[in-house]
C-alpha cells in the first residue's frame, strides 16, 4: 500500500483537486494506495511512512520523502509529465 500525502494551504480546497488528479491517475495503474490531505504546516505530522508528498507549493523543509509539485493537476498543463513523475516515484 502506497501512502500519498497531499498538502495545500488549508488541506481543504486546492488539495482536493490534486487528490482527485492523483486518484484518477493511480486508479488506471493498478497501484494500491491511500491518500491523505493536510495543510503545509501540518506536513510534519503526516509524513511518517509516506511514499510521496504532493504539494501545492515549493516546500522549504526537507522531510526526507520525495516531493512533487502538484499544480499541474489544477491547471491541466503538464498533467501527463506529472503523472509519469508520480509513477516513477511510486514504482521504486
Amino acid at each position, binding site marked *: 500500500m502506497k501512502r500519498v500525502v497531499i498538502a*495545500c*494551504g*488549508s*488541506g*481543504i*480546497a*486546492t*488539495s*482536493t*483537486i490534486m487528490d*482527485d488528479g492523483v486518484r484518477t491517475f493511480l486508479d488506471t495503474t493498478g497501484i494500491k494506495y491511500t491518500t491523505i*490531505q493536510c*495543510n*503545509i*504546516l*501540518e506536513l*510534519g*505530522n503526516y509524513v511518517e511512512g509516506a511514499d510521496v508528498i504532493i*504539494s*501545492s*507549493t*515549493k*516546500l*522549504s*523543509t526537507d522531510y526526507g520523502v520525495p516531493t512533487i509539485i502538484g*499544480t499541474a493537476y*489544477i*491547471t*491541466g*498543463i503538464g498533467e501527463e509529465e506529472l503523472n509519469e513523475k508520480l509513477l516513477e516515484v511510486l514504482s521504486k
Partner: protein
Amino acid sequence: MEILLGIFGFISDLGSTVMVPVMITIVGLVLGLDFFKALKSGMTVGIGLIGINLVMNLVWTYMTPVAQALVEVFNLPLSYVDMGWSYVAAVAFSTTVGTFVIPFCLLINIVMLVIKATKTVDIDIWNYWHCAFTGSVVYATTKNYAIAFMAAGLHFVATLIMGDRFAKMVQEEMDLPGISLPHGSAAPSLVIGWLANKFLDLFFKGGDKKEEKDTGGIAANPFVRFITDPMMIGLILGTVLSLIVKNSIAVSLQTGMAMAALMFLLPRMVKVLMEGLLPLSTAAKKTMAKKFSGQEFFIGMDSAVCLGHPTALSTSLVLIPLTLVIAMILPGNVVLPLGDLASTAYYTAMTTIPSRGKFGRTLFGACIVQALACYAGTYFADATTTVAVAQGLAEEGAKVSSLSATWMDIIVHFIASQGWLGFGIMAALVVALVLWHRGWVTKQPKVTDAE
C-alpha cells in the same frame, strides 16, 4: 422578469439544504455534466451544508456564551465569533446569488478574455466564493438580484485586474511562471502589502539591505508547530477565554475541547462541499482550457501555491497571537478571532511578495491586513449573521462573522447599498476599469509573436 423572480423565490423558500442541491444540479447541467453526475454534485454540496450545520451547534452551545460574557465582564465588545473563511464560503455558496455566481463569473471571464480586458484565465472556481459573498451580503441589504449580481460582477472584474497587475511580481518572487492570483482575499492583500512597503520605503531608504531573508527557522520548530495546529489553537483559546470569564475548570476544559472539535471538524465538512463542486470545477477548467490556452494567458490560481515560501510560513505563526492582540486593541472591532487564525499564512504569503521575502516588512504588512480584516469582519458582522441564519447555517441568536472579508468587499458593498444609484456607479466602474485595464493588456508583449 416577474416569472424569473417567482422561480427564484420558490426555490429559495425550499431552504438551503434543498435549494442548493437543485441549483448546483442545474449549474452542473449547464456546464455539460450528465444528469447523474450533476445530481450527485448537488447532493454532495447539500450534504456538506448539513454537516456544517451539525458542527456549528458547538459554537452556539459553547462559544457564544463565552463571547457574550467577555462583553459583560470585561467590556470587550468581541461578541461575533470568527468562523473562518471555509464557513463563510459555504454560507456564500448556499444563497441563490451564490450558486449562480460560478457560471456568472465564468461568463464574465470569457467576455473579458475575448475583448482583451484581462490576461487571466481564472480556473480557481472555488474562490469565486468571494464574489458569492459580496453578492449575498448585497442581496441581504438591498433585496435586489440585479444589484447583487452587479456587485458580484464588479468584485470579479476588479479581482481579475488586480491579478493581472501583480502577476509579474508574484511570478518573480514565488518562481511560478504563467501564474496570476485573481483571488478575492489574496489580490486585495497584495495591494495592502505593496502600499505598506511603499510607506516603509519613506523611512528605510534603499530597501533596508541589511535585513536578511528569513529561512523558515520558526516554522521548523516542533513546539511552535504543535501549538499552532488548528485543534491546539481551539483547545487553548476555548479554555483560556472560558477561564477568563470565570467559568469553572470543568466547563472551561469542555469549551476548549468543543473549540478543538470545531477547528478540526468544520474544515472537514467544508471539504465535503468542495468535493461536490469538484466536477463543476473540472468541467469549467476543460471548457476554459479548450478556448484559451497558449502562453499569452496567465492561469489564475489560489494563493495556496505561494504558502511554501519560508518567510510566509514563519510570519504566519507569529501573526496568530498578534491577530488576537490586534483584535483586542483595535477600537470598534467586534470580531473574536478563531477560525481564520488557522489561515494566517494566506495573508502573510501575500505580504511576503511585495516585501520580497523580508521578515519585518512582511509582518508589518500582514498586521495591517489583519487590522483591516477585523474591520471588514465588523462591517459585515450583521450581514454575515443575517445570511447565515437565513440559510439555516447559524441558529437565531448566534453571532458569526469572519476575518476573510477585505477592504474591497466593504467598498463594493457600500456602493451597492445606495440602491439603483449604486447600480449605476458600479456599472460605470466596471466600464472604466475594463477600458483602463484594456489599455494595459494590449501593451503587453505577446510571447507568441516574438517566437
